[in-house]
């Protein structure tokens, strides 16, 4: 986007204005996410920068909200921080319970979504697939249908089959989250399969490999980056989902987003900001992984970026 030498003054002015506008939009995109990170270290229970924080006075900053996350719900938070204190935190602290639930639900729904989604993507990417367009539309629809409609439908469905009496904890939420994650798996895996060279599978078959071996030894390693990014998308979808949990989750099925939702609606405290900061750091890590995977996939398929 370098400006040519013969550009007129007006063009020069416009070019720099344009760059300033772009910078402003990027700030709009990123600043709201970054601004909560310093605020979560606020020593005061406010949502704005105190004078001490602006002067970079260490007294203006503290870890108290992170500490509150750990102690909230504990039986004896004042006890000396030894082994039994940590055991208490592990067993009773509400945010730790919510984290455990979120990870369990996220893990199983991701496994379900990724397995079913990858197998289906293999079928969908074959040219001989009948009714491909209509089926694809159905499989992607959980991403498009408003979440409140999905949640309402599941609420009625689960109460009519009495899923809570089946004795499998979190089952309803896991199935729902798998459904919500499937479109992401389908999209990423079919995108990887678009560039897949099918003569490789034919070569494998020609050399005597059965379809399962071909899949595991030839196809899977090549589409793995797409599968992993799909799985990460599915996990993030589950990890961030609150509406279905609110509608179909039992009282003891607290997850991180549900706890945040309650926290925001009832008594919003800077403790929410410290959760948010942790989540932002997790999403930065996930984004990095997905970016690396994407580049690796492009390299594998000979479409390396410059």
């Amino acid at each position: 986007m370098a400006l040519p030498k013969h550009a007129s003054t007006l063009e020069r002015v416009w070019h720099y204005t344009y760059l300033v506008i772009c910078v402003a939009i990027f700030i709009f995109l990123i600043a709201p996410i970054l601004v909560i990170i310093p605020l979560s270290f606020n020593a005061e229970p406010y949502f704005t920068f105190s004078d001490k924080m602006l002067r970079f006075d260490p007294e203006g900053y503290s870890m108290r909200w992170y500490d509150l996350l750990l102690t909230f719900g504990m039986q004896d938070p004042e006890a000396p921080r030894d082994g039994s204190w940590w055991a208490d935190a592990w067993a009773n602290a509400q945010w730790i319970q919510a984290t455990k639930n979120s990870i369990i639900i996220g893990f199983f729904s991701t496994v379900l979504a990724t397995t079913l989604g990858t197998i289906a993507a293999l079928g969908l990417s074959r040219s001989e697939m009948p009714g491909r367009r209509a089926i694809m539309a159905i499989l992607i629809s959980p991403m498009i249908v408003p979440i409140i409609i999905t949640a309402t439908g599941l609420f009625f469905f689960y109460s009519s089959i009495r899923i809570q009496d089946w004795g499998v904890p979190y089952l309803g939420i896991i199935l729902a989250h798998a459904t919500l994650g499937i479109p992401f798996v389908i999209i990423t895996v079919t995108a990887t399969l678009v560039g897949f060279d099918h003569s490789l599978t034919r070569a494998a078959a020609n050399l005597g490999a059965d379809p399962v071996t071909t899949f595991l030894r030839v196809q899977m390693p090549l589409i793995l980056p797409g599968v992993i990014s799909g799985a990460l998308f599915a996990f993030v979808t589950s990890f961030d989902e609150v509406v279905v949990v609110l509608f179909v989750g039992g009282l003891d099925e607290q997850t991180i987003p549900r706890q945040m939702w309650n926290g925001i609606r009832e008594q919003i405290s800077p403790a929410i900001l410290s959760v948010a900061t942790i989540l932002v750091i997790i999403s930065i890590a996930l984004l990095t992984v997905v970016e690396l995977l994407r580049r690796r996939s492009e390299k594998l398929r000979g479409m390396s970026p410059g």
Partner: protein
Amino acid sequence: MTDIAQPLTTADGKPLKSALLRAQSRARRRAFLLVLPLLAFILITFVFPIGQMLYKSVYNEGFTWQEDVTTGERTPIMTNLAAWFDANPPGTEPDEAAYAALAADLVVLRELKAPGQAGTRINYEISGSRSMFTKAARSAEKLEPPYKEALLELDKDWGNPDLWQAMRGASSSYTLNFYLAAIDRERNASGDIVMVPENRQVYVKLFTRTLTLSLLITFLTFVLAYPIAHLLATLPLRHSNLLMILVLLPFWTSLLVRTTSWMVLLQSQGVVNDALVGMGLLGDENRLQMMYNRTGTVIAMTHILLPFMVLPLYSVMRLINPSYVRAARSLGATSWTAFRRIYFPQTVPGIGAGALLVFILAVGYYITPALVGGADGQLISNLIAFHMQKSLNWSLAAALAALLLAGVLALYWLYDKLVGIDNLKLG
């Protein structure tokens, strides 16, 4: 020469054509079998529940059947009244026989402990009628003929023709009345469809608001996304990949986190107001109210949906050959003309894809309006949630959901026609 006249065969002597057909159908079957588990899963855990919910929008047995919670035994209720409604056309003045039927049904309600259920069903349409049913059922056994006088003495509202119309509508399990309610219509005493009184007209207004706010948000995301998508598409890949992270990070960040940050920023004691006051741009006493109203919803949703506009625009813009614009310039076009006549028309597919996607997502948004919307920033999804959780008028919630779903699916179909679902990309 004779060889050509004979049909081609495979090595084992079968005609090639049928062997090929068989191989193709086997390949089709195999591809379908790979998709089948997932398709079945989605049909059971997604399509069927939504269908079941939609059924609730036309089917409500609050006034027709009673189900024992413990035994699951189902008993028909209000049968006498239903028989009277069948025998008399809409608009008939309820006579003594009608009141007698009502009284007999109230006795049954009392025995089944179901007056609350029947009253609630009528209460959806005539507010305040639930207590009439519970009260009348309590003294149902003591009622003496003439029943009309007896009931009117209990509560003169039993003579209300609108109430009788509501009971007529509810006496059949299948009804379209919830759809009428969802578009601010009702049936008057003679059975004609009319608008509800002005002070109860909420839903049409809310649908309109949802559409206008979604359009506004779509437009704002377009205005903000276009320049940066253009910048990303024209920079060399090394730089644009770095800047792309600034677009993708919000995309990967939890929705609740992004909504929380906007709450923090926009509060009247929040960062933006403090900064404006600190810079002297704003007096301390007239801080801007940007939260718990429409402004909050629009700002936060524009930010949250922006990546969905940037990504399709970017993927279209990156494929535009820069030599077209250069050719236009060398033929004497000003940079504005070159942009308007050459560059912009080539980005229209990206604009269409992004705008449709953002609009579809905005129309059904729930979380952000619920948290930052306040009273006048609520969208239709929030009202569905309200009827699900607070007013417990599930049939009305289902009817509203059905209307929303119909709109979203129509847009989704359009998206598939214009853009193709295959072209949906995530980063």
